[in-house]
């Protein structure tokens, strides 16, 4: 079965959710779905569909890359599992921790250092880099 058929529900959902720059490509028996959204819930919904079609993501035939991170100049919510989010001096976990942001705290995204790290500022004035996966558009 072609991968686009297997993941049709997911592709249709991404299309109807208005995912920006949506790209669906198949290469070497892996399907690549890329795009971005400003709504963190849309990303979660797509991942739930992925998990339903391929329980526990075992098949290894899809790379789903939906960027729902907050854009520069906007507010973002800290969405860690339970702990505080480390704010670091530079973009990398090898960088010194200069502060922490609480779970569910709203911070300002100053800029994106790269696809993985964002420069943020807290309301209390702390500034540094955090892992973008733990920020959701507020």
């Amino acid at each position, binding site marked *: 079965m072609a991968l686009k058929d297997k993941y049709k529900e997911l592709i249709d959902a991404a299309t109807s959710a208005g995912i920006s720059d949506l790209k669906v490509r198949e290469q070497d028996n892996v399907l690549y779905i890329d795009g971005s959204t400003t709504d963190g819930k849309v990303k979660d919904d797509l991942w739930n569909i992925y998990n339903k079609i391929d329980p*526990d993501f075992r098949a290894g035939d899809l790379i789903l890359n939906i960027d729902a991170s907050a854009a520069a100049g906007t507010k973002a919510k800290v969405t860690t599992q339970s702990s505080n989010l480390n704010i670091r001096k530079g973009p990398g976990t090898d960088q010194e921790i200069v502060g922490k942001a609480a779970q569910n705290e709203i911070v300002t995204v100053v800029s994106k250092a790269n696809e993985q790290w964002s420069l943020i500022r807290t309301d209390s004035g702390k500034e540094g880099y955090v892992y973008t996966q733990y920020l959701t558009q507020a």
Partner: protein
Amino acid sequence: MKKHIMAGYVLALGLFVLILGSCKGKPSQTTTTDTAVVAPADNTTTKMPDTAVVISADDSLKRMIPDATKDFPGVTASVDQGVITLTGTINRDRLPKLMMALNALHPKKINNNLTINK
């Protein structure tokens, strides 16, 4: 005949001075040209994903994976030719977050060999 040769020299000299003069006034234009040359190259790069999927190099994946897996202490991720293989254990409710972080690194594929609890 000599006169013609002399006239030729003068003409060539004049042309040389003219070209030299026009070049002198162009340093800023040269910079602009450089920028203009860079711009189409960038366009070519951004157009590429439309056709081929860009896969991260192993070095780049190995550099990014520790950041992505830091909060998943039971998980080990190895990289070979763009393929990430996951081993170890994880709780089912944490699996999507891990997969979201790894899928964003542009791997070729992800082999999930994790033992899943709960």
